[in-house]
């Protein structure tokens, strides 16, 4: 199975079926909503989604309304990977014993349910090697409960539990590297994607589904109220994240890094930051050191990926 196979060449190739229906209660312009629509355009047959507590869960499965046309399971906040493991293994054994139809299992989890409280379950599932696709839609904070900081919040960002204060100007810690954590489990495939590049995203989802074993995808999903910008700008901001190298788009296949979108001349990071209220305090002179720290983190991350790709090292 060539890693060059493209399933969807143009938007016209995307299936018409909406497995993720209208009428859900995600905010107008929600990046996670775009991510969900795109991901579930790429399913290839019977599929079940496992969704931990978060924005998508409360907005798409509040009794009596469900936005899902495929089977859907929510149990708790930190255990999506574990619940999905159970679904995968049950289907496998029931298929063997009683011919039950195997379903693709996709976890669709926020950074809240992945980076911190959900990390143990994810690690366990990856180590056990279950055949599932774990997709993290990353809006860089615990948005559902009111924009509190998460392990995915970047350095300098203001959240409600890392506010831009007079003494502490925003989050002082760096963002965790989810793909590095995933790849440390020696899984066959991990990738990042941005909602601003939909064809790259859907092709990766489909490609991942075709691979046997645990796969992880990290999708950049801007948040209107959390990042503080007008609803129409969601896709533009996601594109700026890629174009400034803030969010690199790459794959790691069997430990080998491949950068998919080579940003040759990155736009200055300020272009990405200035359109979001959560970074506005970084433009005050007294916080220049935090802005520098964020820029440095972005640069280091990019350099590291370039070096990994060039060296051909197997992670």
């Amino acid at each position, binding site marked *: 199975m060539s890693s060059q196979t493209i399933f969807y060449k143009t938007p016209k190739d995307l299936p018409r079926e909406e497995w993720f229906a209208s009428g859900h209660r995600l905010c107008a312009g929600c990046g996670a909503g775009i991510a969900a629509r795109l991901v579930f355009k790429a399913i290839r047959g019977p599929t079940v989604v496992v969704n931990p507590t978060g924005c998508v869960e409360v907005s798409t499965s509040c009794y009596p309304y469900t936005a899902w046309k495929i089977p*859907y399971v929510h149990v*708790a906040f930190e255990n999506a990977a574990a619940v999905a493991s159970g679904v995968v293994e049950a289907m496998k054994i029931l298929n063997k014993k009683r011919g039950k139809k195997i379903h693709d299992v996709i976890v669709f989890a926020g950074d809240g349910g992945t980076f911190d409280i959900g990390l143990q379950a994810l690690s366990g599932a990856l180590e056990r090697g279950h055949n599932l696709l774990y997709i993290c839609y990353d809006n860089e904070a615990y948005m559902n409960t009111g924009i509190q900081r998460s392990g995915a919040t970047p350095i300098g960002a203001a959240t409600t539990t890392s506010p831009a204060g007079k003494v502490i100007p925003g989050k002082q810690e760096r963002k965790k590297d989810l793909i590095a954590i995933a790849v440390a489990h020696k899984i066959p495939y991990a990738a990042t994607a941005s909602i601003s590049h939909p064809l790259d995203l859907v092709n990766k989802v489909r490609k991942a589904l075709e691979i046997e074993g645990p796969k992880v995808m990290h999708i950049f999903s801007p948040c209107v109220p959390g990042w503080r910008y007008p609803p129409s700008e969601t896709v533009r901001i996601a594109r700026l994240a890629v174009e400034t190298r803030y969010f690199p788009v790459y794959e790691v296949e069997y430990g080998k890094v491949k950068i998919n979108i080579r940003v040759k001349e990155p736009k200055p990071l300020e272009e990405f930051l200035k359109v979001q209220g959560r970074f506005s305090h970084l433009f005050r002179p007294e916080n220049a050191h935090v802005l520098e720290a964020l820029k440095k983190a972005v640069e280091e991350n990019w350099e590291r990926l370039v070096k990994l790709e060039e060296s051909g090292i197997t992670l």
Partner: protein
Amino acid sequence: MNMARQAQERIAIMGDEAVALAVKQSNVDVIAAYPITPQTIIVERLSEYVANGELDAAFIQAESEHSALSICVGASLAGARVFTSTASQGLALMHEIVYAASSMRVPMVMAIANRSLNAPLNIHCEHGDVMPERDSGWVHLFATNVQEAYDLTFIAFKLSEHPDVQLPVSVNLDAFILTHSVEPLTPISDEDASKFLPPRQPLYSIDFDNPATFGTMALPDTYMEFKYQLKEAAERAGQVYPEVAEEYARISGRRYWYFNSYMADDADAIVLVLGSTYGTLKTAARRLRESGLKVGIVGLTMFRPFPEKQLVELLKNAKSLIVMDRAYSYGGLGGPLYMEILAMLYRNGLRIPVMNVVYGLGGRDFRLDEAEAVLRMAFDGARRGRFDEHVRWWEVRA
């Protein structure tokens, strides 16, 4: 060991091994567990059965108990017959999902090797681990010996999957006293087990051709009605239990009821207990009866749902009761079983003198002579028409 041929022949087996044997014969589909003393033998035997091809099931060692139970919920929703096992800290860690499992009406069986909760850290027998789970809506069954631990496992699967029940069921066995004791067991044959437990037919499951949304959020406008469903289901489990037990009696020759009792029908003084201490009390009670003291004992098999009607019927003519608890509600009126019995007596208009004996916490041994002393104390209470204290912590150095 070829169980099919040796059916109805007694074997000597450890409690944990007996549970594993029953799970194997129950043709489970998915086992997900995390090891914790003294349940470890259960999961080790099961992984051996699977590794040797004797049991066609997925065996998953989860990375924690919380994930183990979560795996079970996912597997059960996919339509599998599911088993897990834990004790003490593990059960406490699972607590969040224990409630999710019953509230999502997910059939499964969990064997709990009842052990004390940290702190202090202690690996020995106590019921303090399962008591915090009594409000969850799970059916809780208690074994008094290895045979019961084995039999109740089959009954648990059948009850759990019954269309009128659809609730997870726990089978409780005392840490070390039952888990690690070798006792005689008369197993049922593999054939009888498969007749009693044919492959699971889920009422609803993950199915792309009939897509459903499981685990929704419910707002104040509907939440209470969903919990009322749980209340009704928990109570219905008590009504369905006798028919399940009856069917099991037909294949095994052993009949289970809401409780075991010995000489309680005409007793003046009755001692109530959960778990293996029943056996000790029975020997003591027999001796005292021989010397003319009209004492009796009751060991609850079903703790949840609470068999109020049947217990009232049995206890109503007693002149005194001692409720023994191997757990405690710190800051409360006494041990959990004692508080339940008090409430039961009061609302049924029974003003029988009751005393709570809290014993055996952290696995402290409860000897035969102590059992006799408790029975004598109960009899004394019947004779005087009262007890001098509500709660006594037995033989504590206070």
